[in-house]
């Protein structure tokens, strides 16, 4: 006798389709939704910079050893992950890219050494610059140079961690 059971659950979403043949893509609905997202761009730029401010303030608390360091680390990671998850929806691909790298750098990290702190500051400064100059898309050659520079910093931090150097 098989250890697995197959259950054909009721398909409640049948009601969401009219007709039985190939479904037509509702291009108008998608365009309408894309316009709605576009209309949120200005709001996004404001709340994203607020998030960045919270990230900076949390980082300052971490460095000043104020509050629970682990909680501060979790907060910084969460903000970076949120910023990664929103930037490109509003045309700020570079913010998504930078925040992605920062989130990966912070994830599962309990503490930050002196050079690690420089890495965090560089990512925050890079995102500040993207908003200050309103850089949309991938930022072209400047964007690639920026990402390349941040990547080198992360590599250097990893190399220092590997060799036991902390500053």
């Amino acid at each position, binding site marked *: 006798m098989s*250890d*697995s*059971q*197959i*259950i*054909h*659950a*009721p*398909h*409640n*979403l*049948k*009601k*969401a*389709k*009219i*007709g*039985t*043949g*190939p*479904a*037509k*893509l*509702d291009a108008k*609905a*998608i365009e*309408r*939704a*894309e*316009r*709605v*997202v576009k209309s*949120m761009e200005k709001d*996004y730029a404001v*709340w994203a910079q607020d998030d960045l401010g919270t990230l900076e303030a949390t980082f300052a608390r971490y460095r000043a050893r104020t509050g629970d360091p682990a909680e501060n680390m*979790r907060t910084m990671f*969460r903000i970076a*992950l*949120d910023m*990664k*998850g*929103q*930037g*490109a*929806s509003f*045309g700020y*691909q570079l913010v*998504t*890219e930078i925040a*992605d*790298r920062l*989130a*990966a750098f912070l994830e599962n990290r309990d503490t930050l050494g002196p050079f690690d702190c420089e890495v965090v500051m560089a990512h925050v400064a890079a995102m500040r610059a993207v908003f200050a100059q309103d850089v949309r*898309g991938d930022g072209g050659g400047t964007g690639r140079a920026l990402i390349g520079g941040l990547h080198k910093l992360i590599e250097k931090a990893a190399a220092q961690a590997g060799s036991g150097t902390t500053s």
Partner: protein
Amino acid sequence: MAVVTQSRYLLDNINVLVLDDNKHMRSIVQSILHALGVKNIRDASDAAEAFKELQHFHADVIICDWHMEPLDGLDFVRLVRTAKDSPNPYLPIIMLSGFTEYRRVVEARDAGVNEFLAKPISARALYQRFASIIENPRPFIRTKTYFGPDRRRQNLGPPRGVAERRKGEIEKLPPEPGAGSEPGADGLSQDQVEALLNKA
């Protein structure tokens, strides 16, 4: 002469529950859903609140974030699938996540999600996930260690001819520009995520 009517999706009569601890993300998702025609939307900022909401809101689809505290998105999916007081263990769940590494997608699949959508999202990508759930209902599998949608949908689907016709029912969407399709530093693109979920 018979008039052939083009099939289409009608999202205005489905109920959607959005779970995300970030209020801006909830706002983005709800705005997109409204524009796509969904009228009945509830939201929750944590898993416990969402599970409570499900007791009286008859959701047809859940859109759920992964990284939350104290319970994360995977905990919530497991609650919906296996808790004794779950109102509907078969609810379709779309997981939205900034985590897009291979192991994460596999983890989400093994928790019992139906679809996985990488953040940042786009209206088109979200619509596509709804289309997938509507067109491709999957049987559920119960084993000693898993309860959820069939993770081998290619192997346990309907007979080959039917499966091919169903696959063809979803209009092919053009490649996703920008949001939702770009791989992260070490993550999978949305296309890669879908390939993984379909070839498990």
